[in-house]
């Protein structure tokens, strides 16, 4: 599979979006393979995907007014090792459902994430197709206008 083919698939995605609702998804993870594989399955499913490799890039995207239905957020990033980033994202974009991804979640961390409004905490490694299914399951606000 060539890089070109992958880029082509990305461009194809809006067409596939016909049957399932197209969501805007932000993937925040410093591991490029995780970003790539999640992006691939989400694009295949017809969603629009943005990527950030660290907390600062994610915050900057959200601050610039970029709106997302779902944020897939790695707990541990080069510039984040606690729940502050989740708190910031929830504040900047309260309408986005945040799914946290973690390689090692303590019960305290999971509880904290839930309290801050994370929709789900998913343990790494996960099945990427399961993750794609979880993304469409997230509850969305009744009116889309509120996010524009």
């Amino acid at each position, binding site marked *: *599979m060539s890089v070109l083919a992958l880029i082509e698939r990305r461009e194809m995605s809006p067409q596939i979006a016909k049957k399932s609702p197209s969501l805007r998804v932000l993937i925040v993870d410093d*591991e490029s*393979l*995780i970003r790539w*594989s999640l992006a691939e399955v989400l694009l295949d499913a017809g969603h629009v995907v943005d990527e950030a490799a660290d907390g600062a890039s994610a915050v900057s995207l959200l601050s610039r007014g970029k709106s997302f239905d779902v944020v897939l957020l790695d707990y*541990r990033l080069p510039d984040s090792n606690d729940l502050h980033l989740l708190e910031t994202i929830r504040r900047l974009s309260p309408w986005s459902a945040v799914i946290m991804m973690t*390689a090692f979640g303590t019960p305290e961390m999971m509880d904290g994430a839930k309290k801050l409004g994370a929709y789900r905490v998913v343990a*790494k*490694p996960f099945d*990427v197709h399961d993750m794609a299914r979880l993304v469409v399951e997230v509850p969305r606000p009744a009116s889309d206008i509120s996010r524009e």
Partner: protein
Amino acid sequence: MSQSHDEAARVLAAIVESSDDAIFTKDLEGIVLTWNRSAEQMYGYAAADIVGRSIGLLVPPGYPDEINGILKKIKGGERVRHYETARQTKDGRLIDVSLSISPIYDASGAVIGASTIARDITEKKRDIERLREGEARLRSIVDAAVDGIIVIDARGLIEAFNPGAERLFGYGSAEVIGRNVAMLMPAPYQAEHDGYMSRYLKTGEARIIGVGREVSALRKDGTTFPVHLSVGEMSLAGERKFTGILHDLSTRVQMEEKLREQASLVRLGEMAAVIAHEVKNPLAAVRGAIQVIGKRLPAGSREANVMTDIIARIDTLNQLVKDLLLFARPPKPNLVPLDVSTVLAGTIALLSQDAAHAGVSVTMTGKAPPVLADAELLKIVFTNLLVNSAQAMKGHGDVVVSVAVDDGACVVVVSDNGPGIPADVRERLFTPFFTTKARGTGLGLSTVKRLVEAHQGSIQVESPGTGGTRARVRLPLANL
């Protein structure tokens, strides 16, 4: 009376008068006839006060009057020697006396009275009493000592073996007295001890006497245990003796081992947390990428199947990390009152769906009030025990799970009719990473133990030589 007779009587009287012992005479009725100066000092009565009165005056009130008995013997011509009794002085003081009483004869040989020599032995008796008390105190200290105390002679033969030593070694003192102390030592000291002793006696070069050190001791049952031994030397009636005091270090050594184990578990927990993150993150990356690539390969192609296999391997690897993490850093149990039978039934039902357990029949008996436990962790505990039983029986046989209350705790026993566990394996059952299975981490039972202990419970695995294994889990009841 001749002159010389008078002279002799005067000398005698002077001797009597100056004697340190009380000397007095009495007639056969016990009436005092003479009373010397020491008698005056000892009893407090002046001669003028007592002569003519009964000697019974000296018998303390409430004491049996032995005087009649003594006089009876005297009348029969008998002497009374060193008779020890108590007397009362004029001022009411009690004194201990030793009496020697002899008959007095008249010229015709008839007994007409008695002479008494009395010695005040109050001090002497008190000293003896003190000595006896002191000895009894020492004896009770030796007997009550928790430490073992052993006395040996210069040849190494045991002369004394206190109850503490009996407890430590499992020998009765009768079994060891007269035998060589080397019998209480494991090899090679057993064979070398005589040499140590003769070297010390010859050269005076002490390796342990007056120093004390940790040594290993040998029980009657052949097991060894750590003791701190201090040896003192003494000389009794010109003979050299050695006293060994043995302080049992088993508990301390066990505690140190336990602390070391706990410290290493903490380190392992920290390590496992790092590994978990550093391994699981790349696993997630590889797994995701392989899944995406696999989906794009022609379905049913060899390459697509390889991708599926790779994912299976990654999942195995992830399970290993999860198992390690569960053992090294078990979650704090979320304790709630639970019906243990419900948790068991759920676990059994889940296992019965597994083809590997198709030939295993599991029956559950008994019941107990709710336990205080974490359902998820209990499921892991029971799953491990049931899977172990099923594997021991090679997938075919009967497992009985019984629930009962014993001594304020809920006891769950998982018994199988498999081949049982050999003794050498049984000793290491709970050792992490010890396994007899071709494939297995050896973390199953050690994790079970940690989880049960996190519930303030305990686990024992019994396996009689006749086969079959019983795993017994005790869990605290919710109402206690």
